[in-house]
């Protein structure tokens, strides 16, 4: 199970590296544009458009990594007070709801990309077609769904183990409060 989770995190991180390279390129492009405009009267044509597309890429390729590193936080104040079993069940349910949400998002981003592709929308200066970037956004959401599925498998496994240990009496009752369950 550990290796499985590690693989999921690694995959998300590898995808995020694409976003990291794009971030660096956005910075250099913007600086070059400003310097060109102010000092040489030669701005980079379409720099704004490229920066906007860059942002889309960096966000979409970062979605899974942010989730893997626990950046998408929830409020824990009440959750911490719940019994251990309830917490484990809730974690699985949250995974299922999140997957449901992003599957709907994924399908609709895809549909949107098809609409944009049909109407041949392009950017105004460089005349770059917009549809491919929307497809890429859908792929980014796809990676997030994949990571959520990994998390679902892990949390279901944890729940199953917890139930098994509890049933076989391996888990003392006190563990319910102190969270002695191995992750």
């Amino acid at each position, binding site marked *: 199970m550990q290796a499985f989770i590690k693989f999921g995190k690694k995959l998300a*991180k590898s995808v*995020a*590296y694409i*976003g*990291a*390279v794009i*971030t*660096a390129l*956005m*910075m*250099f492009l*913007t*600086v070059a*544009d*400003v310097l060109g405009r*102010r000092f040489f009267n030669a701005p980079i044509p379409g720099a*704004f458009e490229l*920066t*906007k*597309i*860059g*942002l*889309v890429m*960096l*966000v*979409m*390729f*970062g*979605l899974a*990594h*942010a989730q893997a*590193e626990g*950046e*998408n*936080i*929830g*409020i*824990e*104040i*009440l*959750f911490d007070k719940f019994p251990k079993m309830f917490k484990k069940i*809730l974690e699985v349910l*949250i995974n299922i*709801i*999140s997957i449901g*949400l992003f599957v*709907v*998002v994924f*399908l*609709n*981003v*895809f*549909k*949107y990309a098809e609409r944009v592709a049909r109407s041949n929308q392009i950017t105004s200066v460089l005349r770059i077609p*917009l549809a491919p*970037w*929307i497809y890429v*956004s859908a792929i980014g*959401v796809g990676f997030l769904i994949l990571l959520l599925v990994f998390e679902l498998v892990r949390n279901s496994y944890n729940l199953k183990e917890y139930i098994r240990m509890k049933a076989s009496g391996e888990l003392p009752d006190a563990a319910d409060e102190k969270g002695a369950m191995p992750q």
Partner: protein
Amino acid sequence: MSPELIGLIGIIALFVLMFLKVPIGFSMMIVGAVGYAVIISPTAAAAKLGTDLFNNTHNYGLTVIPMFTLMGMILGHTGLGSDLFKGFNAWLGFIRGGLAIATIATCAAFAAVSGSVIATTATIANVAVPEMRKKHYHDTLNAGCVASGSTLGILIPPSSVLIIYGLLTEESIGQLLIGGVVPGLITAGLLALTAYIVVRIKPEMAPETYKAPMKEKLQSIKLIWPVPVIFLISMGGIYLGYFTPTEGGAIGAFVALIVSIIGKRFSWKGFGDALLGTVRIVAMLMILLIGGVVFGNFLSVTKIPQWLGTYFIELPPFVLMLAIFTCYFIAGFFMDAMAILIIFTGLFYPLIIQAGYSGIWYGVVTILMLLIGFLTPPVGIVAIVTSGITKIKLETVFKGVIPFWIALVLSTFLMIIFPDIVTFLPNLMAK
């Protein structure tokens, strides 16, 4: 069922999901989409989810976030926090409680190149607390200074939260960032004054002083110079209209990179980590922001903001602000700052504009109200992070924060009573 009632049920559902630990951005998307589906139609709600994700990310205004985040990340990896602290300590150490004041000054300076409270806390807590302990400062004071000083991270520009406020309300991001400068300096001053007063009342909190020789003071300038330079170039350029906030951020990040190379602190690993950290944070913020947009779409079709408007608009302005402050104050006890920002901005911003207030001013006041929440038990995230990093007990941190918390409340009321403190710089800029 009337849209208002559906809206109310939606708001309750949002709280239920959030308190069941469903990530905040996800909760807002779920409730927003379902609510929109109920009031308008499921097809429209689903299609909107698809377009909202791309169209809100494919937005030039937002590109400012990765640039300023990167700037802070690069500098965070160069050991700037420690340099700043040494520098300020050399100049302020002779005062009783000087290290405490130096800590707050370090936070303020770091905040000028970082837009995140957590990054500021993590950096400064590691640097300042061990030094303060060496001089036998009391942990209550140490924790209070670090936790309260770190909140300046989102008040003094660049500020990720001010930028998000700007995107939610379509206020000028440049003006918002500049609007944070004077309130940030005043708040930093009030926090420093608080540290001084605390030490005057309880001298045992800070038993030792340190008088640095002139040579050390001069040398310290070598450590501090990147901050004013980077701040003046990026914010100065935005203020003077030389470039957009995004360009200011990119140039700031670029100069930070050059500074790290000149200072022989550049490493490919550090740069890679800074880039990856930026991607992670921006993706997280975007999920929140898109959640906010989806939830906002829902709120606007429920007509709740208009409904609130008809009731609240009758209130005298000061009472209205007091009512809003109370809402932030109560929410601060149990909710995450970003969630409060997104939900409350959608509810209250239209009211504020209707009442004739400046949106820029309200943005800065909102930040101040959020800062207070950062330090309020039980979920005061900055207090929790401070405790986590320094291993000072959470109760001690909360206790240490109290006098500084009062200073933050005072500062907020100052900005509410004298709005010109916030608006005069951005107004000059507009001309």
